[in-house]
């Protein structure tokens, strides 16, 4: 494909249209160039010396609108406006003659929102091949075995094998040993969407567990359910926790309000051996609005004078803080030997955030490159975080109230942790970025659909490629060179506004001034320079020793014993580059 000579199309990617267009770049002004649209991406390249390139997966497009009319006046007033899910907006202008934008608008609309047009998502068309099959990264049985399960208190249940107990849960569940499958069925009737309390993680030493579920169906009348109460009691007894802590992620008032719709929380009188803690994390709508405000202040222009107060007014970092400090409380409870139950309303948004972050703090395995993939596969993908609804893959309905950046928030929290503990994570910022990029791109099957059930029906594992195939075929890119393996202690980040930072290299990465820093962090750049220099010196040292024969009587005496040490050192270091 000659017009797209400088971009390699993915296997299975096909060109659909190309067109002369003007990109109204917020940083460089109007740029003439050519746009290419394939079934996977929108690619723009400007003419002239100062080349500006846009390369956007269509999946990242949230909204396409016409701008201006055939009769609008003013330069470049007629064209398209594209709102992206990845914190940028694009404006293109076209000639105001002959309905020049009609075809491109229609094509863009069709291919950006394939589901709304009965077309397959690109993940199903992709012919990409990788050395490794990322679908094998997470095997539930293996993961539970790694945690030391089953034990004499906890058993693995296949009651949900056909998604009959709960259609949004995975097939394999870990439940108290004493609870029969019949008990589980009864509990399911009292939990929102049948998402019963099941084990997420068990502490190897003190056997304290993190259990996740949805809200109890208490309702206005304050219903009770003996089975549910007994079931929680079993969880408590499993490691003789004196008081089971139930973390309700919601603010107290929201939990009360949920009673009106049949939900609610565990009352004191019904659950006497439990204490209920509200974590004050707001719902998906609040998060969506917060991100919207954040986008307003970071794209295209970043304000200087009132930056901090603008940032504060988005409340984005405050939400991050609440999620993190909730997770810290969970992790702290568990590490001190108390079992906890975590839920929100349906147990697939805030609950997933809390359990996965707490697990990340407690278990160093999840801080490795593969362990992190397992964590996401387990707590988010298999336990039915509604990716399809929250992201709106291939769906034109941009105003859908179900959309919310819950998963982005999790990745932000993880980033905050990597910032505070730069040596504790095996993966780097680039992994987090690539995860977010492909959260939207629809190039991989990993984040498509709402639950395992739907993925099975659509044969995702066969028909699509996993994101982890891409990542694990090129691990060097995603390795944190500063990682120091350490397993024993719990990581508690500081969840204070004083220590949280905006993830500039993600949220403001489209700003050309920030871009310089995006490529390589200063510290990492320094690391690379040092590595290059070391290699260079090593070579010189070797040359010296080889070439130097005459004065070497001098040289070898003084430097040979020491020259061995650099080579020794090298073996200590991870050298990923």
């Amino acid at each position, binding site marked *: 494909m000659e017009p797209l000579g400088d971009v390699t199309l993915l296997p299975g990617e096909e060109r659909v249209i190309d067109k002369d267009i003007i990109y109204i770049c917020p940083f460089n002004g109007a740029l003439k160039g050519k746009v290419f649209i394939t079934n996977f991406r929108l690619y723009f390249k400007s003419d002239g010396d100062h080349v500006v390139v846009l390369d956007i997966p269509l999946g990242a497009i949230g909204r396409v609108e016409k701008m201006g009319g055939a009769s609008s006046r003013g330069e470049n007033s007629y064209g398209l406006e594209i709102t992206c899910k990845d914190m940028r907006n694009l404006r293109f202008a076209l000639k105001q003659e002959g309905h020049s934008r009609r075809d491109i608008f229609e094509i863009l609309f069709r291919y950006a929102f394939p589901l709304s047009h009965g077309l397959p998502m690109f993940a199903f068309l992709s012919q990409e091949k990788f050395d490794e099959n990322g679908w094998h990264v997470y095997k539930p049985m293996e993961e539970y075995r790694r945690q030391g399960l089953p034990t004499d208190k906890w058993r693995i249940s296949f009651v949900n094998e056909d998604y009959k107990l709960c259609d949004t849960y995975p097939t394999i569940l870990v439940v108290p040993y004493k609870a029969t499958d019949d008990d589980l069925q009864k509990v399911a009737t009292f939990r929102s969407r049948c998402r019963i309390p099941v084990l997420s993680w068990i502490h190897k030493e003190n056997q304290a567990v993190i259990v996740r579920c949805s809200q109890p169906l208490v309702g206005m009348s304050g219903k009770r359910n003996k089975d549910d109460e007994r079931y929680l009691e079993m969880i408590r007894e499993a490691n003789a926790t004196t008081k089971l802590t139930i973390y309700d992620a919601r603010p107290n008032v929201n939990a009360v309000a949920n009673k009106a719709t049949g939900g609610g929380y565990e009352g004191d009188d019904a659950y006497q051996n439990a204490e209920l803690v509200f974590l004050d994390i707001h719902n998906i709508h609040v998060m969506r609005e917060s991100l919207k405000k954040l986008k307003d202040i970071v794209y295209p222009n970043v304000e200087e004078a009132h930056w901090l107060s603008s940032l504060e007014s988005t409340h984005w970092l405050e939400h991050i803080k609440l999620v993190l400090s909730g997770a810290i409380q969970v992790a702290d409870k568990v590490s001190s030997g108390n079992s906890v139950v975590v839920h929100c309303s349906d147990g697939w948004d805030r609950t997933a955030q809390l359990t996965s972050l707490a697990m990340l703090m407690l278990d160093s395995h999840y801080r490795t490159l593969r362990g992190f993939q397992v964590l996401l596969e387990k707590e988010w993908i298999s336990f039915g975080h509604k990716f399809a609804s929250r992201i709106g893959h291939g769906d034109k309905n941009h105003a859908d109230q179900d959309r919310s950046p819950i998963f982005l928030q999790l990745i932000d929290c993880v980033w905050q942790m990597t910032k505070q503990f730069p040596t504790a994570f095996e993966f780097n910022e680039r992994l987090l970025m690539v995860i977010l990029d492909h959260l939207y791109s629809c190039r991989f099957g990993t984040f498509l659909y709402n639950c395992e059930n739907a993925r099975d029906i659509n044969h995702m594992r066969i028909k699509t490629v996993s994101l982890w195939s891409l990542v694990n075929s090129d691990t060097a890119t995603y390795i944190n060179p500063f990682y120091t393996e350490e397993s024993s202690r719990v990581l508690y980040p500081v969840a204070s506004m004083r220590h949280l930072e905006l993830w500039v290299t993600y949220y403001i990465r489209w700003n050309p001034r920030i871009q310089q820093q995006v490529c390589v962090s200063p510290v990492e750049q320094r690391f690379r320079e040092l590595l290059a220099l070391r290699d260079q010196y090593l070579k010189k040292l070797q040359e010296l020793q080889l070439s130097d024969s005459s004065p070497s009587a001098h040289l070898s*005496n003084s430097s040979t014993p020491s020259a061995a040490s650099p080579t020794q050192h090298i073996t200590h270091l991870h050298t990923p580059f």
Partner: protein
Amino acid sequence: MLTGSKTTFKVRQMVPDVKDRMLSHSGHHTRGRDMFGLCCLPGECVLQRAVLVRKKLSAKEGGGWLAGTLFCTHFRVAFVPQDSPKPDDNADPVLLGDHDVSLSSIEKVVAVGPSRTKLVTPNSSLKFTPEELVLYCRDLRVICFLFDRLTPETQAVEITYTIAKTYQPLKPGTVLSFQNAALGSIEMKQFLSNRRRDPNMNWFESSIDWEQELERAGATGWRVSSVNDRFEMSTSLSRFNVVPQKVLDTELKKTFAHFNEGRIPRWCWRHPRGSDLLRMASFQNNIYHEKDDIRNLELVLFGVQQVCVVVDLGEEMPSPGDIQLAHTRLRALCLGDISASVSVPDDKWLSTLEGTHWLDYIRSCLRKAAEVACLLRGGHLTVVLQEPEDRDMNCVVSSLVQVMCDPHCRTVAGFQGLVQKEWIMAGHRFLSRINYHRDSDKEEAPVFLLFLDCVWQLWTQFPSRFQLSGDYLLALHDSLHMPLFSSFLANCQRERSRRSQHLSQSYTPVNGLRELPRGSSPQDPCDPPLPPVWDWALQYSSQRRARFTQPVTQPSCPPPLLNGNLNTNLDPHRHVDGMAGSVFFLSRGSFSSPSNLLPWRSGAGSGSYRKSHRRAPSAEMLPGLERLLRACSLSEVRPEPHEPLLPLLLGPCVKVWRDCYLRGALHAQAFTHPMPSSMLHPVEQLAWEVQQMRDKLAQASSTSSSSSCSSSSSSPSSSRTSSAPHGKQEPRRSDSNLNQNANNGTFLFPSSRSACYQPAAPRSNAHPAAPLKATSRPPAASFTCPQPRPAGRDGSKHTFLFGHQPDNRPAQRYIPPPHAKPPRSRSGSNGGSSGIHGNPPQ
């Protein structure tokens, strides 16, 4: 009563119990004596001690709690961890251990009880046994000690009282007693008077120093004038000032009156592309301009260039009052305060931080400096910084410009030289601005701290371009809060040189009581020899100092730096080629050429300025200048080694110096990811490795070159002459390897400073044949140059290590490690920090 007892007047304020204790200790107190594990300074007395105390560690220290013993002496609060190695009795005194804080830095003492917290003042009485003791410090540290259940209750109470009573309250006159407590003993005085200054940095005290700087910068057409030698021309300027060669001293004398406080335009630095940076105070307007004066004024202002840009720092930059207010707010915000419980709620942190304006001021300093750096880069201009007094913002901006543009200023030695040049010698009013004596509250303004924060911002954005480290900046920040250093205890060189009189005037004895130690001369007690702040070995342990530098990998210095005036033709950025005599005014980001800019040119009044000079500057020059500035604001320049470091100034890019302002233990989490304390960050680990290999290479090649070039074998001894005294100060220990590395880091930079001492050092006879041109090309710069130039091939086969250096001798500047062969080990006996730098014999 032995030494250091000059401060025994304090005993009178103490509860009798403490007094007894102190007296009983001081009787058998000798220097270096290990008091329960505390290595005391000579004459230092332990007033109180509490065992089984735990100190809360900050996140940077690894978090958690550290068990040990807490001491209060009359100079510091010291904490000795339980199993810290036994102090070496013969080691030189170090003022502060790694966990110590000087009493002068303490601002508030707060005791935390079971149910309440109480601010403990010298007069307060505690009604509960403290469980925790929190020290709020002026340097923004918050130090937190936890008394164990096993700590004897009386000790917990007593030490709280003792600290509260002994720390220096904010009163005029306490500075001297504090100085005496720290440095007043006879041993300490002797020790200090034998101490040699770091010869590797430029102190800018003599005219030779300035000449070396001119040579380093490759500035021609300038000379060092000693017309102010007796401070008769300007009391606040230093003795020596650099002015255009064309102006004779007699002519120069007439220009002083035309500037506020006589602070005439003086040369600061030359950009490798040939522009000069000058600084001056505002013009005296109500003065008649003689025809001759005008010629001289023009000469002084334009220097060696044809076009001059006056950069206004008076209007748009923060005033000292602004800075003080901002810093006060920042402190209140960052320290929080558990005793007053008024700390800012977390969700208002960002807007409150913004409300301090501290970050705004940092941004405006950095922006202004970046603008000036871009102007300088653009070509042949004289850029003159103008501020009404020329003693605050001019210091900030001129030194920031140099940090941005001159890699030498990013080394520890170069940075210290820079502070000497642009702050200490230039007459920044440290004494008033820091307000040690608490007698100049209206003048107080932490301008220097603002500067340090700006440097830190540059450092975080370009860490690999600095040889000095964040730890270094932090140490300097903290030292500013100890009124012990001659560097900061005066407002200008004149005051500094008259210090003894000054002190005896300002000293008012506390409670009218002061015992003179027996056997010392009358003027002695009020004159402990104050060390310069750069004497780091006096202040901090070698472990801490080892973290002051980081090896730098980038080839840091472009060849043209040293003779920039020869390189003009290569300059593609040269936008400005204006008419001779054009003056522009840069204010608020735009250029103009107001006719009244130079008072002697504005027609009215003087009238003697010839009309022909008053032509409007060519209009096409303004866009050219503005282009220069735009390049700066876009910061499109891909960081090249010799391009200025232009910081990003977007909202999120100017950050809070967390390691400094938020390092209080209260902000630390109880547990953090444990980095084994023995382990370095992998980057540092690698950096040291690279450094070691580099040393080895240097050593290998110096070994081979010395064998091939026998004449050079004598050179180590010549370098020893200058640094031998230091050998005594830093006895070689097993850990000296690390220190050597730390110090060797400097040689990555062209330390032409080393050349500075040449004329003075009696080594020229050792190398009568040493080619002079070698001084203009520091071997270090070419050493890091990875590409061997063809010419280098002709030399010894190892010269590629040093670029195209035709002679091999520079190799000797790398002092080999201790295990070197006999001829080497002679030079190895240099030991210590300075020996390592062994000035290159050239």
